[in-house]
């Protein structure tokens, strides 16, 4: 094999393409084909894309980076976002009694509450909700307040940023129905006895 590869031109039998002389490696030959045009254009287009992208995002900075995107997204959501202040309860409220509301309450319960209070409300990390004791009061109003605002220092998170007022009414009403159900494996009573 010579450095300058000066051998007569050979052609590939099947395709008629020109073989490069001197390019033979363990019987592998190489053809002298040009770069496919579409491939070259693909490469050029991606390079142009890159230049424009960097120019727009990082030189003249007219396209939004992630912080701006976030601000815009939050602004757009502004009116849709819930306002926790609207969550006001009063002591005269009574638990919902219709089955549809209680079923909706159970669905919320199953999704969100059982990780601490267990499936039947017998308590594990959170208190037993089926016995006749309560840490923060026994009334419907007390339970609504606890669920809406939480007791963060005890590990009960506030739900008013995750549930609507209607949902809180539903799940609280459902929770009230658990009282006196005597499920198996209950957690020992906590708090004060209810009257």
């Amino acid at each position, binding site marked *: 094999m010579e*450095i300058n590869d000066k051998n007569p031109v050979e052609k590939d039998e099947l395709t008629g393409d020109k073989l*490069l002389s001197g390019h033979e490696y363990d019987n592998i030959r190489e053809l002298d084909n040009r770069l496919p045009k579409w491939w070259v254009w693909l490469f050029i287009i991606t390079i142009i894309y890159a230049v424009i992208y960097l120019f727009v995002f990082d030189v003249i900075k007219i396209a939004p980076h992630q912080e701006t995107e*976030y601000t815009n997204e939050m602004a757009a959501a502004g009116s849709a976002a*819930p306002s926790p202040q609207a969550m006001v309860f009063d002591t005269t409220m009574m638990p919902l009694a219709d089955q549809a509301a209680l079923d909706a309450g159970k669905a919320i319960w199953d999704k969100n509450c059982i990780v601490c209070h267990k499936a039947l409300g017998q308590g594990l990390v959170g208190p037993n909700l089926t016995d006749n004791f309560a840490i923060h009061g026994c009334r419907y109003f007390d339970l609504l307040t606890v669920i809406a605002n939480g007791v963060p220092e005890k590990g009960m998170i506030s739900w008013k940023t995750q549930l609507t007022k209607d949902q809180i009414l539903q799940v609280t009403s459902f929770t009230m129905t658990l009282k006196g159900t005597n499920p198996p494996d209950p957690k020992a009573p906590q708090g004060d006895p209810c009257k």
Partner: protein
Amino acid sequence: MENQTFYYDNKTVKLFAYATLFWGVVGMVVGLLLSLQFIWPQLSFGIPYTTFGRIRPIHTNAVIFAFVGNGMFMGIYYSLQRLCKARMFSDILSKINFWGWQLIIVAAALTFAFGFTTGKEYAELEWPIDLLVAVVWIVFGWNMIGTIIKRRTRHIYVAIWFYLATFITVAVLHVANSIEIPITLFKSYIVYAGVQDALVQWWYGHNAVAFFLTTPFLGLMYYYLPKAANRPIYSYRLSIVHFWALIFLYIWAGPHHLIYSALPNWTQSLGVVFSVMLIAPSWGGMVNGLLTLRGAWDKVREDPVLKFMVVAVTAYGMSTFEGPMMSTKTVNAISHFTDWTVGHAHIGALGWNGFLVFAVLYWLIPRIFQTNLYSKKLANTHFWIGTLGIVFYAVPLYWGAITQFLMWKEFTPEGFLKYPNFLETVTQLKPMYAARSIGGALYITGIVLGIYNLILTIRGGNFLAEEAASAPALVAVSGKRASGEGAHRWLERRPIQFSIVALIAILIGGIIEIVPLYLVKTNIPSIASVKPYTPLELQGRDIYVREGCYTCHSQQVRPFRSETERYGQYAKAGEYVYDHPFQWGSKRNGPDLSREGVVSGKQYKPNSWHYNHMLNPQKLNAQSIMPVYKWLIADDLDISTTPRKIRVMQMLGVPYPAGFDLTANDDLMRQAELISADLKSQGIDCAPNKEIIAMIAYLQRLGVDIHSAGLSAASVNPVK
């Protein structure tokens, strides 16, 4: 000129082939077990050594470095000798390369099972094994370059360019990403912290894909495909252009693993654009491969070797188009943290690497055993089952990824998250996970058929350990460029110069991206309220790393309404400055944990919840796929390492007061007793010296400092 006779070493090739098959099965069976744990978490068996977080690195490392790695060595040791018309440089080095690599694999599997890990994806090996990897890798390079230097051919073929780039770049990546300070024999702290660590890690991680799974396999394609098809390479020029473009551009693209993270925006932009520019250079390899088959497509119909190659090259083309798409912000918002990435990775690993490895095996084993393949029909069956397996593996994950993304994002008309409980979005995917397992099982079935076929081939053959060949010695010519000699043609007969140019090409991107993060302080704005971890939290964090929690949980909230609504404020660069290593994670099979300790946050759980959750997650929610971690409750925390850990952290710039190492354990016990007392008040008896106490301390610290910095997110982190 007189012909010299010499012998090719086929024995090393054979050993690598056997190791490829063996580790392939091991790595994939572990993968299948992992996939089943998504459906039945009890398949963790309640012991640390088989729990997801510890065996996931075994699976990824076994497939990448053991299966694909041995396959790569097999292919290179066979082709390099023939392309250089020379036996390997040194039989002893070949032996060290082979046995050293197997030793590394065994050591990796054992240490991962025991929880010795750096917690950096695909670079989990602890420091003694990192050193061993470096030594064996240098032995491989030495052996290869020695062979190239004593070659009997004037020029080095394109396959060898790719082999050289592989050797050089993997060496650079491995060393740069493994600079760690030992604590004990199997525990170290990486010198980089937080955002810097993330950038170095994904510069490594991305380019491990590029230079361990891609360039060597392009080299193999350039040798075995024209050999098997008996056709000339389509275009020498395309080889040159796509080779240099590929290695130069690849190294810049690492930040695409960190889109929408706390990484500075300019670095993210580079990650995006360099990934997009990679489409053509990557496709250059596919095009050159497929066009080489022009005139030989009738052979593809007949020959299983070519079938495997065509699907491999096509899978390569698919994933190198998909990759750049996933690097754009729009697609990344969907694909990142979901199983899309896992699907993408498996198109590459099962399709490109796995099928090319088997193409090479089916081609090479009959040759070194001087026989024909036992059964073409069986190889064809393997081909179809394997192809079906890939489809069944990937499609459900893509489907699942989009499902989960939509569920994460959905808001109710009232403005609440539709699925506030993360678990719902996981439970929804269970059928997809099951389908994925079937795909994986199909693929493994194909491999078993392949192994059976190869065993019978080997039995019917006669191994040729020393294959005689002859070629004239290379006559020395001037090193200078001859008149009329193209610059690249000149470089092809100067392998050392070639390697130096390649080294320069791959260093540019890394240096431009990584160095400014060290030199320019504004890249990582500090946050005054972010303080070092307490000794107990630090020990807890090391348990978090040990158990591989990052394999399912991220610590990186993206700046999306759906994420800040779910977790709390989005991630800031300044909150990770004491994290050695960073633990941002790359997928979410469980929720993000970086705001876990914020008492007023939506993710908050009391100490007793964490205790019960680690003891038995399914007791808290029957649907949960979290594994049991009951040994954290049984095992005592090893506090003998605390002083050394504090000193190393101080060395790395973490501002603990002078002499703190001596009192650190007192501080640790004080905090542990508080947590123990709190558990006691909840009716849980847990001594303060248990590992779970440290783990709880760490989890309850997550997000606390950044939260106390206030919620005016934008003002904290004015990253440009």
